[in-house]
């Protein structure tokens, strides 16, 4: 039933393929988490700034992307993304055919999803900072940039870290969905291997164990970070 001999290293087994698939999963999740954090910062800025239009756009974005299944967002970006990119290229006077590769599309799609979750976490962290601190910093004569870097950011990181850890786990698990775009990460690799070897149970359990390994150890990493960032409070 469970064929251990199919998991050996080299040409006879699928061990090395699974290692590269794991590296690919990690790459996609780290890239999309980073891109998602950038998007989330923009979204948070749009939500807290005193403008109705940006707030409306940001709320629309988070509501829609969180209310629609992740698979649908990935399908939409995978099948519709190329035409959007070509439309943009047409504006700049390029009429050729452009095809984005699966890694780019997958990263953008997952980033769009994870940004909605991160933005909620970051917004909550921002709101939990006492307004008196910003006023105190202003009274000390700090400009807006140094207030953001020296006063707000360290506290936002400390408050947001547990939530960001959760978002990271969700992102890591969502990367399994971009197997539908043909990117060879753990999920896709296990489907390929099980189709070749006619033994789905072996490779799907391998995939599950790999995901479990990744989520567990990244969880431990975030625990360490949390302890590190709350040193001043214990």
């Amino acid at each position, binding site marked *: *039933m469970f064929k251990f001999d199919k998991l050996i290293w080299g040409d006879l087994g699928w061990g090395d393929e699974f290692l590269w698939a794991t590296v690919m999963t990690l790459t996609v999740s780290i890239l999309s988490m980073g891109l998602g954090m950038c998007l989330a910062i923009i979204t948070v800025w749009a939500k807290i700034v005193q403008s109705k239009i940006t707030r409306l756009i940001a709320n629309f974005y988070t509501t*829609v992307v*969180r*209310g*629609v*299944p*992740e*698979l*649908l967002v990935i*399908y*939409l970006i995978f*099948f*519709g993304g190329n*035409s959007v990119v070509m*439309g943009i290229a047409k504006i700049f006077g390029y009429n050729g055919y452009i095809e984005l590769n699966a890694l780019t599309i997958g990263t953008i799609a997952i980033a769009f999803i994870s940004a909605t979750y991160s933005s909620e976490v970051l917004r909550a962290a921002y709101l939990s900072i006492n307004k008196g601190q910003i006023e105190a910093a202003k009274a000390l004569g700090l400009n807006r940039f140094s207030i953001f870097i020296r006063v707000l950011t360290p506290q936002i990181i400390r408050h947001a870290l547990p939530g960001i850890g959760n978002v990271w786990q969700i992102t890591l*698990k*969502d990367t*399994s*969905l971009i*197997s*539908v775009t043909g990117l060879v990460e753990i*999920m896709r690799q*296990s*489907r390929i291997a*099980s189709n070749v070897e*006619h*033994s*789905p*149970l072996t490779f*799907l*359990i391998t*995939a*599950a164990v790999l*995901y*479990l390994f990744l*989520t*567990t150890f990244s969880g431990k990493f975030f625990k360490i970070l949390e302890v590190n960032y709350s040193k001043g409070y214990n």
Partner: protein
Amino acid sequence: MENFFIILNEYLIIKNFIEVFKGLDNTLYLLLISLPIGFVLSLIFALGRVSKFVFKIPIPYFIIYYPFINFFLFKVSIAKLISAYIFVIRGTPLLVQIYLIYFGLGSIKGVRESFLWYLLKEPFWCGVLALTINTVAYGAEIFRGGIQSISKSQIESGQALGFSKFMMMRKIIFPIAIRKVLPAYGNELILMVKATSLVSLTTYMEMTGIARRIMAKTFAPVEAFIAAGILYLFLNFLMVQFVKYLEWKYNPHLRLSN
């Protein structure tokens, strides 16, 4: 601007909408079976997670030169078993679980020959099973938080009134716990609505599957997926309203006016 209207062909999107709408009942069947079962099971699992009950399984063994059978007591605590289950399910993506049940269980010969095969050969029942297993793990963790947050004095006053264990559950623990976990469980319900779209990858034709088929037929991805997206948003909107209604119903002391 003209270009935009060609891309978003109005006629096509209405046609797609009607076609995707026919898949709504398939999505709803998935939810209507897996959510109630998941709710009941997650309450039971949450109780198991906080219980201190330990299974003692006697395992007989022999020692040479000793005329009697000895028993080694193998202790399994229910709380640890359930937390292991929760750990595994929460650490793996739902897609892996669906594939494991749909492709993995089908590849075992014993399952194919047993009565289970009548259910597991259908992608629908595989989807229901996977969704239930998934929601029970998340739900049990949520309900555990609710049960553990009940203050000791409330349980003590229940004991002082002479409640039996079952009455205590029914009258004190469950009402307070459910009230406390409603927002978190509402989130989980919305995640479940979104999770049903993954069952389309096992050839079950619900809304995402139909949108995918329309895309393959007409090669107009944006219209097909927007039509499905609007329906999912609508479903989630209904879910949010339902949870809000429950919160209003179970928190009479927080209502602003009657």
